[in-house]
């Protein structure tokens, strides 16, 4: 029978090998998915990284009321109406499918009259809200069944109505109890998630975030090994369809490669279509004015009309929060927009008088709208330079340095 198979023409053998490879790879990836889901379901426990998401109680934005931080807890103080609304800016995004059970432990929770869980997702323009139920001092909600708990959750917060301050001790988000259906659906959602381009993308794709159950490349690699093992076994057992396994191996690898590559190709085309829709037919200046930092571009365009061309020097300063030290997004981005002007954008403030750096004829651009460093009465700008204000634009001010106050 084997020799009869060998005498068949090449195209028929290739079809057999291709189908064998396809079947092996599909079975292998299915096996990996079911094995992962089965293991978690039977053990009843998620892997550590996917078990619970603890919301950081830092980087809080207050929309109503006030807050105080005490030893890792967060005290919410309602306003006169008894309302406090806060957003947790330090919480990283996640997929709604990954985490749906909210649990918040409080002190004084019994005084809460009403509580809502707030979120912004990629699939809805408006902020959504759902009630949190009170059980003693613990607030809970199970959001998995809610229509608007979909897509990527980009921001979370809470709104409380209470007559007195409430202390939040911790907030956690948890996945629902594991089941085969949920886990298989979650893995598929995570693998096909359309990430989009963001500031970090140049360093690598984040996929569906840190709570991803099983990274797709890992599943694909294991499926490939499984598939190769199956083909090798068929060859060793001298099954008639596996006289020459090379074609099956290739077909299997191509199928699994497609599984990994198609989501990426989908992202390429989706992003390109978006770029065409948003930017096509517009000049470069018009495109820049559509970006989130259009204010900086507008300021730079205005500044270029106010000051002479290089080599005149321009100091760009901003006292906006600068957690990374000497690098600040606004200063460095406007430095690029201001090119080819001769800019120094490294510092939050103008150099001190001792440094003997700033000279008459230099220019200074202060980016902050709350800047109080300039005294119009005596033409003094901190830390002690005489300056003429040339104008204001979109919350920034431009000065020409005339000299030092002590000259």
């Amino acid at each position, binding site marked *: 029978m084997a020799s009869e198979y060998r005498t068949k023409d090449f195209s028929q053998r290739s079809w057999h090998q291709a189908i064998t490879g396809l079947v092996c790879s599909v079975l292998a990836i299915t096996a990996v998915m079911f094995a992962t889901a089965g293991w978690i379901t039977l053990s009843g426990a998620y892997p550590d990284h996917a078990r619970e998401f603890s919301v950081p109680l830092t980087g809080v934005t207050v929309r109503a009321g006030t807050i105080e931080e005490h030893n890792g807890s967060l005290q919410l103080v309602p306003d006169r109406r008894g309302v406090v609304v806060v957003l947790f800016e330090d919480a990283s995004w996640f997929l709604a499918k990954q985490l749906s059970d909210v649990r918040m432990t409080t002190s004084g929770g019994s005084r809460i009259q009403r509580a809502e869980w707030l979120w912004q997702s990629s699939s809805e323009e408006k902020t959504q809200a759902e009630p949190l139920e009170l059980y003693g001092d613990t607030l809970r909600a199970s959001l998995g069944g809610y229509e608007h708990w979909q897509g990527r959750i980009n921001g979370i917060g809470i709104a409380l109505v209470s007559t007195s301050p409430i202390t939040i001790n911790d907030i956690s988000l948890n996945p629902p109890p594991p089941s085969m259906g949920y886990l298989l659906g979650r893995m598929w959602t995570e693998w096909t998630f359309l990430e989009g*381009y963001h*500031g*970090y*993308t*140049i*360093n*690598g*794709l*984040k*996929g569906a975030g840190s709570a991803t159950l099983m*990274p*797709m*490349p*890992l599943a*694909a*690699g294991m499926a*490939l090994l499984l598939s190769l093992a199956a083909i090798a076994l068929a060859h060793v057992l001298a099954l008639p369809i596996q006289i020459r396994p090379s074609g099956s191996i290739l077909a299997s690898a*191509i199928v*699994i*490669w497609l599984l*990994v*590559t198609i989501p*990426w*190709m989908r992202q*390429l*085309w989706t*992003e*390109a*279509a978006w*770029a*065409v829709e*948003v*930017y*096509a037919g517009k000049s*470069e200046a018009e*495109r*820049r004015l559509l*970006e989130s930092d259009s204010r900086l571009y507008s300021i730079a365009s205005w500044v270029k009309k106010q000051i002479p061309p*290089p*080599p005149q020097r321009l100091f760009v300063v901003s006292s906006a929060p600068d957690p990374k030290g000497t690098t600040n997004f606004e200063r*460095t*981005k406007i*430095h*690029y927009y201001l*090119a*080819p002007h*001769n*800019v*120094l*954008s*490294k510092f939050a403030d103008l*150099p001190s008088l001792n*440094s*003997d*750096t700033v000279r008459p004829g230099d220019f200074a651009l202060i980016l902050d709208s709350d800047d109080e460093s300039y005294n119009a009465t005596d033409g003094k700008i901190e830390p002690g330079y005489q300056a003429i204000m040339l104008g204001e634009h979109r919350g920034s001010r431009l000065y020409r340095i005339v000299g030092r106050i002590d000259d």
Partner: protein
Amino acid sequence: MTELIGLICAVVVPWAMGLALVSALMPSNTNSPLRWGAGFYIGFAAAPAMLWVQQLFTGSISFAQPVTVMLAVTAALFVYLLYRPIQSDSSHARFGPGFFTLFMVGVVLLFVLPGIADVLLRPLFPWDAWYTHALQGKIYSHFSELVEFVGQRKWRTQSEPLVFNTYTGHGRLIPLIQTWIALGLGRWSETLVNVPWPLAWFSLGLITTGSALQAGHDRWTAAMTGIAVISVPIIGIHAVLAGYLDLWLAGYCALMAISLSFAMGGNGRMRWFIIAVLSAIAACWAKKFGVLFAVLLSGAALASIPPARTQRYLLPAIGVSGLAAISYLLAGAPIDLAIKIGAVGELGISDGALRIPGMRELALETGSLGAGTVATSLFTSRSLGLWGWICLGLVGLAAGRFFADKQARLATYWAIAIGLASWVAFSFTQASRYLEIGTVTQRFLMVVLTITFPLTLIAILGVHSAPKPRDDHEPHA
């Protein structure tokens, strides 16, 4: 229309010169994909080099003079090539017109076309692109001069009028590529200056395909290797979100590795060696990190030269030395093992730091995150897809032929060298901080795998099965 003509010239002329140069350098039986791909990268190192030379001699830069010189050089090289016997591509692996070629090109365009749309439309996006590279390119092209960029301390106290400030820790190749395109256009355009990036993406596929063909793989396998490289997400990202230098570093390092491998056996060794040297220079000019890869590849190549019977002692000796060094570091014992290379610098560990010439020293630290993070990324990173798995499998296959020829040894020693270097750097030096920030891992692995993939593909077959020329005058291996 003038801008369009200028853009076309700025792209086509360097590519044509690069193609002519590599065609003259490479053995006459080199296949078309490899010549076209390598020609692109060499040409786009030559154009910035021309600007640099022009600045040196005239004090300014322009488009007309360098492009005229390039056209003259191209014409002269093509005349030379006309009289040199040119072999056709190997008869069992030809990419002529036909369904197969059209199909493969179509698959490639499925990736590259949306990338081109993004590059032409999306405003300059990634941080380093506008923070330093494009900033330099914008200023160079505005002043038609390679003005000086300095750190903030010197800027504050300088008296020269035309001195600018930005981060200058990287090489100038990428800003000069953007400057070159802007000079051809006649103005700065932050989208059009990045046109070379998707072309570099495509050319990386050509280089990979060409190297597989040259090693003796059939055209189906060769085409699939090129598509495999083009389909890797992190490589596509660096082409689409254009302006970073890692894609170029990957291309030059791959070309360096391929040329080094072919220089170790087969036909035209000295020719391939020259291309390896040119690629190494370009890689170092693109990013200082290129020095690391050049040093490791050179070391791997040197270790591969001794014959098989010597390797039976050399491989264990290298392995034991590497493990001994790691043990020293694990134990926190002081190591002073560096070679002084004249004025260039030191290579090794001394005074509590890892030192490589041309690169910033890395202070030794203990208790760092570790190379485990990097190793995990090989198998789980969405940015790499299946590539880590495939490359590791290929390394295994290449290592299986370790005693058969130098190409297999080069691939194996390279894998050992980069593995050890990564372990030391990410476990015992301040480089581990970049793992914590998360900005380095995928980009580092992108270059590592771009080198490993073609090296192992060549090693699996070995160049002894590469097509022989009909009347080659070079001595055979």
